């Protein structure tokens, strides 16, 4: 019997076992790293801020109009916003409702909605001319 050959086989087995264990650990490491890297998405801050600006400042310009005129213009804005956001593959809307007249419209409620694969945003605001939104 060749003793050297036996030794070689034995030590080869040992090395292979070690390598296999290290491989498993390495594979786990790589797997974990890949999973977490998926979370590095871009948060849609600007898209949401734009909706807020439209709700708080854009619609405020329609205050003073009659209720019907206010709703007509606010509805137009809503349609345009939906169209623009859909082009980016997301849903965005600014829906004005409950306009309270005092002569013309003085206060209105507005609902902001933004929905993408990762973020869903909803906000209700009560806005009054000269007093801002809460």
């Amino acid at each position, binding site marked *: 019997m060749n003793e050297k050959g036996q030794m070689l086989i034995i030590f080869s087995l040992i090395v292979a076992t070690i390598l296999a264990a290290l491989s498993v650990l390495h594979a786990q490491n790589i797997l974990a790293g890949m999973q977490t890297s998926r979370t590095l998405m871009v948060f849609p*801050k600007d898209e949401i801020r734009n909706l807020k600006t439209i709700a708080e400042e854009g619609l405020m310009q329609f205050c003073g109009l009659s209720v019907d005129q206010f709703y007509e213009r606010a509805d137009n804005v809503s349609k345009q916003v939906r169209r623009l956001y859909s082009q980016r593959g997301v849903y965005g809307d600014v829906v004005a409702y409950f306009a309270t007249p005092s002569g013309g419209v003085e206060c209105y409620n507005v609902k902001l909605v933004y929905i993408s694969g990762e973020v869903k945003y909803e906000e209700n605001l009560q806005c009054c001319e000269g007093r801002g939104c*809460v």
Partner: protein
Amino acid sequence: MNRRGVSMILEYLLLASILSVFVFTVSLTLNDVLERSQLERVIDNQFADIASEVSSQLVDILAVYPSNGNMTVKVFMPEKIGDIEYIVGLEGNNITIESDDGRFSKYLSIGAAYLKLQNLSGFTHSLKEAHQLQYSKTSCVFPSAVLSVRPSAIIVPGNFTIDSSASSSGSGTTYEWRVKWWNGTWSGWYPQSVNQIRVEINNGWNPGSECNYNNGIYECEIVLEVRTTCQSKVLNDTDVKTVLIANQTTTGGTANLSVDKFVKPPQAGPGDTVELHIRLDGKGISGGRTVNLSVVLALDSSGSMGDISGIYGENGLLSRSTLFEKISGTVGANKRATNLITLPSNIEKYQFVVVEIADSYKDSFWVYKIGSSSCPSLNCECFNSRRICYVENVPAGDLEIEIEGADKNTQYEALVYIQKLDSLKNAAIEYLNGLEPSDFAGLVEYNNSAVAYDVNVSSVYLKKLTTDKSEVVEKVNGMVAGGATNVYHALWKANQSLFENTTIIDDTIPLIILMTDGKPTVEAHVSQSECSGSWFTEDGVEFCRYGWWCTDNCYKQIEDLAEQIKQNKIGDENIRICTIGFGRPGDYNATLLENIASYINQTTKCFFTAQTAEQLQKAFRTIAQSFEVVATDVNITDVIPSNVDVGSVTVETDGSPVCDATPKKMNDASGNTTVKFNCSEIHIDDVVELVIQIKAYEPGWYQLDVPDVSNVTYTDINNNLRTVNLEVVQVVYGKPSKAKVWIE
């Protein structure tokens, strides 16, 4: 002998043993060296990554957070790290990650982001399909400013009350209010300070630029601003009302129904009750009439109304006086202060004016001068060492009253009284001047007996009633106090006046206003033997001129006579009786006066009490207003959506509206609740307020009315049918809170 030191078998055994020891030793440390230490490093890195991811999501959320809404953000994480499962949670101001077996954990503080957030909570297990961060926040709402001006229309001199107490802040906490009107501003904090103020408008008032003059009436604007701070934001609301001020009585259609609606408070916690108020106010100087009045004033001029001849002492003087005005101020460096009061010009000369230092100031102050008369002097008589003084025969107009103090720069308070009869003359003359030109008026003055004056001397057919009110005013001015209180004879004479010529006043509402300051002191309709005083017969009816205090039998005689009068009809209208008890409670028989009064509406008698000159004036005004219609056939319909619970519905009224006893509440097929309430008549200065209790359990914004079908319909004084759509009001359920964030 074998050359080899050991045999082959032994060699194998030795090698195998050495190898076994080696493998055993390696296997003991392999897990630690090759797996555990590596795993720890990997897990530490990965946990840090996940915590950083959650932290950055939180910061991103804060960059665009909704002030009133919610946000959901997906979080991605591996199911296992190094073959271990783990839990990610939010706790305190930390993001925590812990392996299932508890061997590995990681904490990451969210730092300053915590200042904007609270109630970080929740956890998620790595094996779950999806993970998300939830953000939710309820913001404040604007406060609700509700201004009430009562009455909303006055004739100078007069007063009105500005009331801001129906206002509320969104969060139900304190708020600051500021009222601005043409004569200045007035502010305070709810609930610490008084939120009602009475504004006196005297002759010579200055309207300022806030008042628009239109057809004899000033429309003056009053602005209420309510301000509150919530979540570091200053929020405000304003309410604007106008008060109508006329320098003299105007007739004609200037009145209308004012409709106001508000919710109190505008923000509440889920399950809390809020109140929806619908307030109708008959606003105007004069309303409309469908028919004219024929009114006989039966006015008491007995000795207690102001005969001070033979009266000694301050108590006697005050018992025949009535409070006209309170004065207060600070004496100056010379220890004196001058006050100016205005005696209305309805009567030329006032019998007497009394000034009394208020009780708590009597130790340190005295009356120094009334008008041009120093006190005491020939003209100014005093009691109690100048604490109470009076002068007689005071002309109408401005009157200076000077107060003297023991020390300079000290505050005082004093009370000004006038003769009770003068108060009555003022109120009655104002009432007469406010009647429509085609109304008839007459006067019965009574004390020992009653006299129905001829006020229409030129007419052959009707002498006791006239449309020329100046004739009646002249007779009122000529009344002199003295004698007893013959109520029975007064009613009898008033009834006679109305029946003098029923053809001429056929289309009018006959009305007797009986005013007395005392209990009847004359037995009525008795035989000569039963009369302790002198006895007389009139139209075959026996009357007693003097007598003792009325007994039960005597009261019954008066009530029987009043009942008989109320049954009498002129044309289609029954005679109505309104009564006023004037003076301190107990001076007059309130039960008797209430019993003989007619009903002003289904539930209220036309009976009033008055202790001061102002209250007497108000009693006459209320009687006048009860015939001054602002709106008829008033129907309130409010449809409340099905997503809120509607509790009790109550009605509060002021004045003399003629309304249903209770509101109706009905549910329709869609679950909406309809509240209906009807009034057949609302008069000048009447207030009808419907209060609907509402409750919702889920957080959210609720509109409390269905638009277009919620309205008030009525017929105005020009006989036009009007519809006022009720404003849709909203309430926010959900108290303002800091942002809540949780992971799930």
